[in-house]
């Protein structure tokens, strides 16, 4: 589903190279975890995948279902089924959450050539998904993410993911700022979306999240490259021994 081939990417503003020849393949139905120390390029990877202007790809390619997405803009990638759950969801004053959800769902449907949702259909979908994530409907009347707690913001991200039904989900440090209860709710939300035709990429610092969202594969990112891949036991090894050994071996 996702094939990243020898990807090189730089910060557009100052030309600093962050991603330096990254290779990664994630198959349909797979949950892949990407781990790595601070500054290894984890968040940059999520931005490059979603097509943020602040980064330029200088070499290599990103294939999604066999086709390059480098020429697609962020909105087109989203409509094609790529979803990024933000590490820091953005607060947008003046835009009610419900309105935002409805516009996003309908814009994606329009880009795919589908009919727009009617209001009753939309409300029903939101009610169901919000209930599963223990999100109060009153919270959704507030401006998007404004005044939401850390946990509420992350749950709102997963709500959007559940409603937009993407094919490839990228979760950028979704566990940061979550207490144990919230971590459980968010993980359950993500697990509910596991399916044979959907791939999920979980970016995280800690093994903690991977106890709840058990990955099929684990990849260690360091200095913009995947330096080691393995199964879920690799995450445990990292938790116990840190990154030092793996980095030394790779060098």
């Amino acid at each position: 589903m996702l094939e990243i081939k020898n990807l090189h990417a730089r910060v557009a503003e100052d030309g600093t190279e962050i991603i330096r020849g990254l290779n990664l393949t994630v198959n349909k139905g797979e949950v892949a975890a990407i781990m790595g120390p601070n500054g290894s390029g984890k968040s940059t990877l999520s931005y490059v995948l979603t097509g943020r202007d602040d980064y330029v790809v200088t070499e290599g390619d990103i294939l999604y279902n066999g086709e390059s997405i480098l020429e697609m803009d962020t909105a087109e990638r989203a409509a094609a089924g790529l979803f990024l759950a933000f590490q820091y969801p953005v607060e947008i004053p003046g835009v009610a959450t419900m309105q935002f959800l409805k516009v996003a769902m309908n814009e994606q449907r329009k880009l795919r050539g589908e009919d727009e949702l009617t209001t009753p259909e939309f409300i029903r979908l939101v009610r169901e998904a919000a209930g599963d994530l223990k999100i109060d409907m009153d919270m959704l009347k507030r401006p998007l993410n404004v005044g939401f707690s850390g946990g509420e913001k992350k749950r709102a991200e997963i709500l959007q993911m559940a409603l937009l039904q993407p094919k490839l989900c990228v979760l950028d440090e979704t566990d940061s700022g979550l207490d144990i209860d919230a971590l459980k709710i968010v993980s359950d939300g993500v697990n509910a979306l596991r399916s044979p035709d959907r791939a999920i990429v979980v970016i995280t610092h800690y093994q903690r999240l991977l106890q709840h969202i058990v990955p099929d594969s684990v990849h260690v990112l360091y200095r913009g490259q995947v330096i080691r891949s393995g199964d879920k036991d690799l995450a445990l090894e990292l938790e116990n021994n840190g990154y030092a050994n793996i980095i030394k071996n790779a060098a």
Partner: protein
Amino acid sequence: MNMQSMRPITAAEQALVDNFVDRLGSLPGDGAITALRDGFIDDIKQNGLPTRRVEAWHYTDLRNLLKKVPDGGGQADVSAVSPLVPGSDIVSVIDGRALNSDAPEGVSLGYYRDALSEGIAAQRMVLQNADDLIGRLNGAFANDGISLDVEDEVALSDPMEIQVIQGGGQSHSRFPVVIGKGVSGTFIERHISQGDESTLASTITDLHVGDDAHVVWVISQERGLSDTHFGQINIQLGANAKLTLFVANAGGKLVRQEMHINAGGENSELVLRGVNLLGGDSHTDVTMTLDHLVPNCVSTETFRNVVFDRAHGVFQGQIRVAQVAQKTDAKMACNTLLLSDHCDFSSKPELEIFADDVQCGHGATVTDIDENHLFYMKARGIRERKARAMLVKAFIAEIVEELDNEALIEALENRFENWLDAHG
């Protein structure tokens, strides 16, 4: 003779003087009013239109901006339009002539042309300050308008809409409004042009808000791309009165809307909100003076400006707090989104405080659309154009939604949305 009078007269200034001479015979008024009119046009002739050297007009250099003055009345076929808020009672001035209309119960209407003919309008023809060009222009040329008197304790269930509609040429009208004690009601002043001819209009509203009255007053600028409008509203606020004044500028080529407010009754509250949607080559100036003359009054002023293309915007806000006006609480904010490299917005706050126990503050911001907001929305599949439009709407929605009237909020939001759809 001073140096200023040596400068050559501009085409626009000469046209105003010629126009005045042509119209003199048909302008209503007794001897005293004719003398006042003469004096005003003489001031314009002697001093010329204000330039950037005149502080009150520093950012709106009329001598340069007002190139042409359209002649006489309009030719186009002009008619009243449906109200902004459905169910409103409408009174109209069309091409400078007040139409016969019905008033709701508790409201009496009058024609300003009668006040001029009878000479009682002379008391109104007072300038706000030494550089009051709008007062002079309107004083010299005004030939009609509508007066509204709302009886004490009347609660108006539907808004009253004053339509000022023009098809071409010039019109100058005046609206004396007296709101009685304890009245509650919503009033909408709309400035509209029809047809393709360029127009020039001046309007002055004299609004007296009685004690304990709760009034919402909306000024909606809806003129076209070649129209000039000089508007002024002069307000007296009674004790315990609450006035929400909402300025909705989304139209016109050259617009100056002045607001002069006297908070003269204790415990009054002024809520001034404004949205300026500016595009094309337009120039829009919103100028406010607010005098806190008595203790314990509250005022807040918030403007949200969205500027496109090569448009220029101006906000001047002057708050003066008299020495006796202790416990005054005044806050002013002017927030601007500049959406092109060729537009600008000038914001000039002025506070003159002579009392020692007050809270007064002001702030101004100028920004572009936040890239983080934009990226987040695009990452959810919302295309750039749509995302930008939503963010601009969100920027102004915050203050529109403060209005405590669903129908009015919807009407204004529709109006802004239509304007943005045409300019986005």
